[in-house]
């Protein structure tokens, strides 16, 4: 395959173009899904190949992609990309400017501790069937699932500047869920939560401790049925890492994707309340809030040698001591904002067009000690976790989230639970209310394999490193 990529680059170098790049991906995935005690679905896709060619001609992008990778059709794919660029340039008043960068050549092959694609399917099924049966032993459980996805992608990226990089990565998403219902309604508990994808193989499943947490989620979902809701108009909230990862994702991560500033995502994903003039001076949060994008950390899913336009992995401070400093950018967008490209241009598969995407987008640890310490230092409030509902506006300014469960805190002790804790906030006000972030010991990567953006839509794999944090006086009594 590398030879084919070299050949395409050579052909592109022979064309009258400003820039061209080629990507090839071969993706394997497997889904195992138990509904109640039944194996409802086991599916596998292996060696799903895709090829994409992007060219910049007359200041305009053209792209052609295919999942039918046929050496004899490469010329027509190149011509289609060129034709798209040339014709589209007629409706382009501001040509794309693209500064050359130094090429990168290299390889990165992640090796999981337990390769799920080398394990027998029988072994994996037996493992998850055991969980599925145990989830259903309590008669109050009316529905359950165990859902696991294994993913492996080999990628080659090359461009006309001389960059040539190939990578192999593994990601795994384990999850389980139980539903219970009574006259008060229906409640759900999941484990390990909404952002359960991690870099790795079957060892990620074992680390999730599914079996060890069955009794906990079964008890909690039954207790939730008769639990009260939050009654206070406002309360102090400690947000656990799993849900805080989503809070960062929605209200900071997407908000600081610079393509939104320029309106490139207005048609689907939306805009951002951030304006270029805010960079370097806008108070996005309290002094406890330090947020960065770091595609150089191999512990996270967002690690890479180069992004999908050849920019080497970078760590960029997005918010420093509460002040908005930088953005996630592309080579096209960064100079328009007087920034350096942040290595955030990525596509899900080779036949997708790259977009500004989060990589490892993290909240730096604070000094509040352990989660236990933070709870002890909270007079009254709620510790909430496990995402249930999330919604944020077109500008990433107004959000409302609901978690599956909240633990009521009085005088530093957990005294009970509440169901469907729902809170609302305006992004900078909310982050401004952050008065404590737990220390390094509580800081871990959470991840998703399903961050949607772009048209045609792409689901991206990415990570958020976080530790639990506390937010003061948050509106939390919102009901339909």
């Amino acid at each position, binding site marked *: 395959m590398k030879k084919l990529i070299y050949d395409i680059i050579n052909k592109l170098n022979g064309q009258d173009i400003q820039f061209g790049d080629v990507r090839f991906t071969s993706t394997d995935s497997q889904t195992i899904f138990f509904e109640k005690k039944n194996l409802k679905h086991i599916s*596998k896709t292996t060696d799903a190949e895709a090829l994409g060619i992007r060219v910049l001609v007359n200041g305009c992008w053209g792209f052609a992609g295919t999942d039918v*990778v046929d050496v004899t059709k490469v010329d027509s794919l190149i011509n289609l990309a060129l034709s798209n660029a040339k014709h589209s340039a007629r409706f*382009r008043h501001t040509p794309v400017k693209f500064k050359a960068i130094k090429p990168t050549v290299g390889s990165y092959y992640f090796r999981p501790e337990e390769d799920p694609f080398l394990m027998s399917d029988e072994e994996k099924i037996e493992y998850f069937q055991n969980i599925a049966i145990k989830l259903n032993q309590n008669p109050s459980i009316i529905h359950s699932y165990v859902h696991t996805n294994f993913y492996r992608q080999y990628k080659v990226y090359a461009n006309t500047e001389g960059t040539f990089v190939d990578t192999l990565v593994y990601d795994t998403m384990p999850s389980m869920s139980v539903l219970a219902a009574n006259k008060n309604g229906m409640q759900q508990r999941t484990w390990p939560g909404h952002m359960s994808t991690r870099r790795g193989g079957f060892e990620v499943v074992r680390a999730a401790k599914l079996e060890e947490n069955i009794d906990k989620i079964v008890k909690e979902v039954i207790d939730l049925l008769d639990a009260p809701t939050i009654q206070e108009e406002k309360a102090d909230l400690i947000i656990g890492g799993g849900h805080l990862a989503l809070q960062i994702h929605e209200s900071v991560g997407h908000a600081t994707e610079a393509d939104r500033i320029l309106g490139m995502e207005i048609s689907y994903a939306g805009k951002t309340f951030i304006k270029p003039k805010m960079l370097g001076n806008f108070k996005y949060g309290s002094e406890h809030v330090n947020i960065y994008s770091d595609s150089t950390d191999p512990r996270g899913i967002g690690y890479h040698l180069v992004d999908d336009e050849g920019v080497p992995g970078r760590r960029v401070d997005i918010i420093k001591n509460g002040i908005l400093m930088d953005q996630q950018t592309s080579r096209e967008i960064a100079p328009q904002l007087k920034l350096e490209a942040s290595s955030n241009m990525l596509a899900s598969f080779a036949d997708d067009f790259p977009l500004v995407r989060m990589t490892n987008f993290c909240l730096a640890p604070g000094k509040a000690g352990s989660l236990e310490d933070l709870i002890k230092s909270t007079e009254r409030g709620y510790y909430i976790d496990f995402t249930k509902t999330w919604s944020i506006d077109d500008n990433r300014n107004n959000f409302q989230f609901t978690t599956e469960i909240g633990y009521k805190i009085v005088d530093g002790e957990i005294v009970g639970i509440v169901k469907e804790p729902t809170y609302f906030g305006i992004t900078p006000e909310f982050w401004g209310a952050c008065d404590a972030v737990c220390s390094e010991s509580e800081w871990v990567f959470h991840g998703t394999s399903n961050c949607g953006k*772009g048209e045609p*839509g792409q689901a991206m794999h990415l990570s958020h490193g976080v530790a639990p944090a506390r937010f003061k006086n948050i509106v939390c009594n919102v009901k339909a």
Partner: protein
Amino acid sequence: MQEQLKIFLKKIIADNKGYKYIFNHSSWRTDFLRFYQSQVNYNISKNSEQLWVTLYKGQKSLSFAISDPDEKKLNNKLTESYALIDNLPADKDFVDIEADPTKTEEKAKVDNTIELSLEDKIVILQKFADVAAKHAFKIFGTFICNYEVSTIINSNGVNKVSYNSPIMLEIKGVADKNMVTILESLGGEQLSSLNFDAALTSFEKKLIAGQAEVVDLDPGHYEVVLAPRCIGEYLSYLGSSFGASALDRKSSFFEGKENKQIFPKNITVYDDPHDSELVNFDYNGEGRKIEKLMLIENGVFKNYLVDNYYGNKLGLPVNGNDGSCLVLKTGDKSLDQMISTVKKGIYISSLHYMNFINVKETSLTGLTRDGTFLIENGKITKVVNNLRFTEKISSIIENIVEIENSSVVVPNSSNYGAFSISSSKMPHVKVSKFHISSSTKTI
């Protein structure tokens, strides 16, 4: 699908009677233009060929997918699958795969990726850009043509081909001075029936409305007029309760409400995959021919969407519909009449980022987008910052007091998983009481 592959699939079925097979083949391409600030962002040409295979042995099953399928790849996968399937646990609720032999006329459709060229699209977009510029707006959006040929072959004799070639234009006008956004869209499968000139006229009318003063609204309950795409989206979200799988999970709002009056008598909703104005689907994913299905008739809940599996499991009649062609029956008021009787209310053009808080109760939250307007004394007077609502869909429908006397086709692109375009046909509706829970303070 190439004839050679089709013959091979039939031979597999004939030679292996101890197994049952479902072969779903799709050959698909798109020409996808994205534009922003009245210029091209990028144009994507993309093609895909996929074969999805589900293999059954009694009540045991597994699935796999092959890109760019050929006989060798398929044989390798099947060999691996035969070795595994005996060791899988059985699904005791599974009875049989689809056996409906009924076919529609297999007529190839015009390939709109060719019929509507990139050059043609740019000519159309330039007209919208020019009108927008006249009012100090720029255009942003997507102009999409797809073409897909789907073939389904199974061991119960199903052998069907369907064609799909939707066109979708979604165009937003964004004001240079304050980013007030308005939205126009049109779509369908017949290029000749798409009235771009009428859309341009409607677009300009919205641009003019979008130049009004921008105000904020306090949380509270308001009388609202919902644009067709909004009520279409609420009904689409209610699809999570229409499905028989939701009934099985005990998470359907309609559980225990079958054949009961649950909404006002003016509410009639059905799924009509053969409505000529909509993007049509002849068969569902299992190969069953789907027909018009009444979901809510004069406010009475009539039918779940029932596929083969859940029909067998729950003892419900199978219809195969999936709610991808929803139609809300029109009422007796013009849009002007509906607005004219609102003393203080809101016109909502589009919705954004909805998510259920409690799916069984149909409670959800979400936001307005792309044109929220204040109605005062029967007239649209101002632009309103985007608003958050926290509501039950059931309450919204219960509070529908007026329905427009005409409807429009609302195209919708599905952006997660396989990319597809579907559509619904919806009129405006007036809702007497609608809960705004907060303002975004932004446009």
